[in-house]
């Protein structure tokens, strides 16, 4: 048994760890295993990728490319391939992943199972929108090929299906053409939420990528920095050499706390405000700003941290976000890594996909026990009233009724579950 954690480092339970390395042997491996769950890079925050006391089938050994056609941009690969490796391979040949999250250190299987989104949701939707075909292996040995046009019900259950419908072993992804690794970017400070929504609306047509950092604690009305970007052709401009830093130890106390947060945020806001404006940025620091700070999750100290990410419909977005920020500011807890972004007006592919039309707010909170949970309950109430939902890839604690109201297609989804697969989250929220 091996102690395994997720990115939030909130728990470290023992798991029976089984490494998958050969895609032709996965079937036999699952058949002989106790109930388990596929585990990729462990980059989700809560218990969605954990299965305490059960098995974890580690997929990072399934990291082979199978085929790539650089005239069409179709890529076939095993599910443990990292998005980073796809980006590095494809960009030099004129293609790029259409959708990536804030870290490229996740597997293809994880990206599908959580139906991850990026900064361009309003243009290109979520990861599942670009998967053409996937192979799922069930614990009873059944192999299911599905895609938007083949067994679409299985596809809809598996995209965003949290790994609970079977083990994804390979996928075919449609990449999109790109001129090179560079982006034309702009940082625009905003003083309050109203300005944020104006900026978001104005940017949707011209800018493919939009995201914002929000100061959740000082400044009163939700000031922040709006960042937008679009691909730009700069020919063969040489790529920068990335510097890698590492958070070498688990900080004995959270470095993000009441003493540091206000000054962090104020400094960051003013520094960036001063640097605001247009520039040319390489895709890696723009899309994945924290990937060069290895194990940054250690800065929250030994107790780990929660991430609270919700989406609420646009009509009530401003007031709901305002209310959440107010609760957070009042609590004094809260995070440096606070992200506010609008989603486009499109329906997600998966039955349990997170994105829905509206605005999403994501915040990190160091675990202060009772106090933190009390704050979450107040945030839940706001999300519930706004008819929003919480992102399962980030969650470690949402109440069952909020899950059920947030994900109305849950009842359909349950028909596709694999009885030999279970996760901490599925037991907590789905009863098994």
């Amino acid at each position, binding site marked *: *048994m*091996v102690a395994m954690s997720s990115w939030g480092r909130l728990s470290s339970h023992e798991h*029976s*760890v*089984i*490494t998958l*390395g*050969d*895609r*032709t042997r996965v079937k036999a491996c699952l058949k002989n295993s106790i109930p388990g769950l596929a585990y990729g890079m462990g980059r989700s925050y809560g218990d969605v990728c954990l299965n305490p006391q059960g098995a974890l089938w580690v997929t990072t*050994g399934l990291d*082979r*490319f*199978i*085929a*790539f056609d650089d005239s069409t941009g179709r890529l076939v*690969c095993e599910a443990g391939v990292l998005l980073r490796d796809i980006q590095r*391979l494809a960009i030099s040949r004129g293609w790029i992943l259409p959708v990536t999250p804030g870290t490229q250190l996740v597997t293809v299987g994880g990206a599908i199972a959580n139906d991850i989104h990026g900064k361009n949701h309003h243009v290109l939707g979520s990861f599942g929108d670009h998967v053409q075909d996937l192979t799922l292996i069930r614990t009873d040995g059944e192999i299911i090929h599905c895609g938007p046009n083949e067994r679409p019900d299985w596809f809809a259950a598996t995209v965003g299906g949290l790994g609970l419908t079977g083990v994804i072993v390979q996928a075919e992804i449609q990449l999109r053409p790109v001129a090179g690794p560079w982006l034309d970017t702009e940082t625009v400070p905003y003083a309050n939420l109203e300005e944020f929504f104006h900026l978001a609306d104005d940017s949707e047509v011209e800018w493919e990528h939009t995201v914002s950092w929000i100061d959740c604690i000082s400044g009163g009305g939700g000031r922040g920095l709006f960042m937008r970007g679009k691909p730009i052709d700069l020919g063969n401009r040489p790529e920068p050499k990335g510097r890698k830093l590492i958070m070498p130890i688990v900080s004995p106390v959270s470095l993000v706390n009441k003493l540091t947060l206000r000054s962090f945020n104020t400094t960051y806001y003013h520094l960036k405000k001063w640097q605001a404006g247009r520039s040319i940025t390489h895709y890696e620091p723009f899309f994945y700003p924290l990937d060069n700070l290895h194990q940054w999750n250690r800065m929250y100290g030994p107790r780990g941290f929660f991430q609270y990410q919700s989406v609420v419909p646009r009509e009530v977005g401003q007031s709901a976000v305002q209310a959440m920020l107010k609760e957070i500011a009042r609590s004094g807890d809260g995070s440096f890594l606070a992200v506010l972004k609008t989603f486009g007006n499109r329906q997600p592919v998966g039955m349990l996909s997170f994105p829905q039309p509206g605005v999403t707010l994501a915040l990190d909170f160091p675990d202060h026990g009772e106090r933190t949970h009390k704050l979450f309950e107040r945030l839940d109430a706001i999300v519930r009233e706004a008819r929003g939902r919480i992102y399962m890839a980030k969650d470690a604690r949402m109440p069952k009724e909020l899950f059920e109201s947030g994900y109305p297609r849950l009842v359909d989804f349950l028909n596709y579950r694999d009885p030999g697969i279970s996760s901490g989250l599925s037991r907590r929220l789905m009863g098994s």
Partner: protein
Amino acid sequence: MKKKIVIIGATSAIAEQCARLWAKESPAEMILVGRDHEKTERIASDLRVRTPKTTITSIQADFLDPDQIQAVVDQICKEGDVDIALVAHGSLPSQKECQNDLKKCREALDVNGVSPVLFAEAFVMHMQKADRGTLAVIGSVAGDRGRKSNYVYGAAKGLVSRYAQGLQHRLAHTGVKLVLIKPGPTDTPMTVHLKQAGAKLAAVDHVARDIVHGIAQGQQVVYTPRIWSLIMMVIRHLPYFVFKRMDI
């Protein structure tokens, strides 16, 4: 000129990572030799996607048959001098099984000891004629001192070590280099049961980087991760009265 690189036991996780690194360095001509043809082909396809400019051939061979080994190596070398040959295959047997079943014991000795030596011997013949090339053989830290937990495997790897030592002596005044690689326990499918037991294993890409670097430098012995050269020095020199009390 494209480098000509041959990998014996190309389906081994360490070898596969080395192949990726070499392919990334510069377009090469790569020949993958494996026991399981389909598996070798899967790795070849992956490398073809990663580096379309590298030409990749896969060859299936029986690793225990001296005639086949000779034929395969002759065939490879006939078509041009080899720049790098990496002999990477092996299997980690259960020590208990080796103790209880002589067939298993023999198999472990053959696969991990005799077979790599035969491959190396076949290559070195050609390399010496060309007076160039680097031959690298993967041994193990387990070959440095026999321990009760895996001495059959250790003995086979020890055989490889001693063989490499002699071969280095033979090649001392030639243009051919021999690199002996001694990885510590590495996170690969071969060590799944160690990982399951909670052992701390080295990352395979780290080990592969050390190997590729060591081969490029023509180092005599490459311990990877490097800390293992220190650990094994201590273990080799532990007096027996201490050593015998240790459960390793």
